[in-house]
């Protein structure tokens, strides 16, 4: 064969269609019993994302475990211990695509002892699927998942009322659960909630519209996932550009080039914009927004670009380029909703490394204000003994100010983690209030 590589051409209808896809990240939380694995299995299977050799492996494992059916949960449980014990220990990421969208599922176990995994999965999600067993209605677990989705500000919630086949596709059952959920959700900070009656096992309203629910006029689950309006999930108003690194090629062609590399965390940047660099406060203008493929006219979240300025100012990693008339808050006493992730609770007066956008510094937990009961939203003020999976409101004091927004306003500039200086482990995740 020739050495010359065949070049791309436009004569490939399938591939062209796929190139226009958007990316949607969603999380599913639930226990084995409510049909989560069956639902994921169905989505993967019906979108032809399960390969024959994967299915063969799952069949063999099912046989070896003495099961009389092929357990699709084995597709998502990847580690030896998980397969042996039949539990999901960690967040598992699954991928499938339709011609419209590519999907990333963060599949997390729903038990209370795995709150930290649910929080992890929720942190990057555009949408959450909350499963309710039609026979059981709204349970503690439903509330827990919803509260986490609300705390983590997942923009879209899809409540799937599952196992409709076991309640004879009864509309009243569906309507009652819907009302119960709406009553509960009114206490939460969620905006886009949709309800779908499904049977993951039988396939009703998952990919195909069901003939068993003629009273349901809404969309199937897959259609809903394909059509959620996600382009406004990013903040396109408040311009934030945390500098990751400075690019200085120092070669002949780009001798004096000085570019600030980073990922847009919010807003829309354009060449000519008047900007201020924080924390120094120097002002300048954007000279160019560069990429390997050439300069571009605007940059918005979540693009990775390199910005050059008209003035030579001293900028380094951890600095933030913002618009003069719209600046983040400068805070050193930081109010945070925190999820504790480590098996060892916080030690009194310990200093942690606080990581926020592209910067880090030391910080101390000054006060634990209250613990949150994540089944009921009640504040527990008399028990301040923090353990793994606890969610609590705390006050942090950092050694130098951070440039932040509230988490509600911007997930990128409103989130932080704490790292234990001794073990280097990530021990807590925080959402700035």
């Amino acid at each position: 064969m020739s050495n010359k590589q065949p070049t791309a051409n436009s004569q490939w209808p399938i591939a062209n269609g796929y190139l226009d896809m958007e990316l949607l990240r969603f999380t599913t939380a639930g226990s084995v019993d409510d049909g989560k694995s069956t639902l994921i299995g169905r989505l993967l299977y019906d979108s032809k994302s399960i390969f024959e050799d994967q299915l063969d492996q799952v069949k063999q494992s099912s046989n070896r475990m003495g099961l009389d059916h092929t357990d699709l949960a084995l597709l998502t449980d990847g580690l030896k211990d998980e397969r042996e014990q039949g539990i999901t220990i960690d967040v598992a990421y699954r991928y499938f695509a339709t011609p419209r969208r590519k999907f990333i599922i963060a599949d997390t176990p729903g038990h209370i002892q795995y709150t930290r995994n649910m929080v992890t999965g929720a942190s990057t999600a555009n949408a959450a699927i909350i499963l309710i067993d039609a026979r059981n209605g709204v349970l503690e677990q439903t509330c827990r998942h919803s509260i986490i989705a609300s705390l983590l500000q997942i923009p879209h919630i899809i409540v799937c009322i599952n196992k409709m086949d076991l309640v004879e596709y009864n509309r009243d059952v569906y309507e009652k659960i819907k009302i119960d959920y709406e009553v509960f959700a009114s206490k939460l900070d969620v905006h886009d909630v949709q309800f779908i009656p499904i049977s993951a096992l039988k396939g009703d309203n998952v990919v195909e519209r069901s003939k068993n629910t003629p009273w349901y006029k809404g969309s199937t689950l897959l259609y809903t996932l394909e059509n959620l309006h996600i382009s406004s999930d990013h903040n396109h108003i408040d311009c934030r550009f945390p500098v990751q690194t400075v690019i200085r090629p120092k070669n002949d062609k780009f001798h004096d080039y000085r570019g600030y590399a980073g990922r847009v965390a919010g807003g829309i940047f354009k060449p000519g914009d008047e900007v201020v660099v924080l924390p120094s406060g120097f002002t300048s203008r954007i000279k160019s927004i560069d990429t390997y493929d050439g300069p571009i006219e605007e940059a918005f979240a979540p693009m990775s670009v390199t910005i050059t300025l008209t003035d030579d100012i001293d900028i380094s990693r951890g600095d933030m380029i913002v618009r003069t008339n719209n600046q983040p808050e400068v805070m050193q006493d930081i109010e945070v909703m925190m999820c504790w992730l480590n098996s060892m609770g916080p030690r009194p007066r310990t200093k942690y490394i606080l990581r926020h956008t592209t910067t880090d510094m030391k910080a101390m937990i000054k006060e634990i204000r209250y613990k949150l009961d994540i089944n009921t939203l009640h504040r527990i003020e008399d028990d301040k003994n923090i353990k793994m999976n606890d969610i609590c409101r705390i006050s942090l004091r950092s050694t130098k100010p951070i440039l932040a927004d509230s988490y509600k306003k911007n997930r990128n500039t409103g989130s932080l983690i704490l790292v234990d200086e001794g073990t280097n482990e990530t021990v807590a995740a925080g959402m700035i209030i």
Partner: protein
Amino acid sequence: MKSYSLTHLRELEAESIYVLREVFSQFQNPAILFSGGKDSIVVTHLARKAFFPARIPFPLFHIDSGHNFPETMKFRNDLVEELGVRLVVGSVQKSIDEGRAVEEKGRNASRNVIQTITLLDAIEENQFDVCIGGARRDEEKARAKERFFSHRDEFGQWDPKNQRPELWNIFNGKYQQGEHFRVFPLSNWTEMDVWQYILSENIKIPPLYFAHEREVIRRNGTWLPISEFIQLDEKDQIIRKKIRFRTLGDITITGGIESNADTLAKIVEEVAAARQTERGNREDDKRSETSMEDRKREGYF
């Protein structure tokens, strides 16, 4: 109103570039694990984009099993020259000669497992504190549990049940003396995404990925290429077939598939219609149900 959204490929690209820049900022001595396969080629392409107009600030780090496709070696050398980066080679043959590793024997012998010894030795010798790899979560069930920033202890081992939680896009690359990290910028990419990206960017890849005629034998349901390293016995029948490779590894364990896909566009179509995973043709993954997890725990790629 204008819609500010990215296509899935642009969003994945932005995420990977962000990860590569974090590696550069958080570590002292990174290297790109380069096998000559499509995934490490895409990682290298993304690194070029991440630091443009500067040169890639990492060396390419190749674990040379000695059982290579000659086409891959040529590709590697050409790319190193084009990019002007340093090449660091860890040689499995050298590990065997020095008695650090013992070669497997028998008909299905491969150097896949002992590569880990060479890899860990070379990491120590070169004092790399992070190796950037092209592994993806969709490849294999143990890999589905990988973090972007994956911590390795002082023995190079991965402890899948004791991983650091990774939230939002905040990465924690802190380590103690003697430990290191593996970073996987393509974590969220699928095989399809990689091919679509290679197509849309027209990234150069080794000719082995395109359908071509080659002498092969049938073994364990796949077409293994004839090379000086493969042990033949009387049952093996050598035939010429038009095949291509979906993954590239050691020449002794990388099976080809029958294919007529001789352009990138045709490969994308073929991948879209495929009913087997790409690693289905890799002998190294077939040894047991948890062979990838076992090897990864020991420090494998």
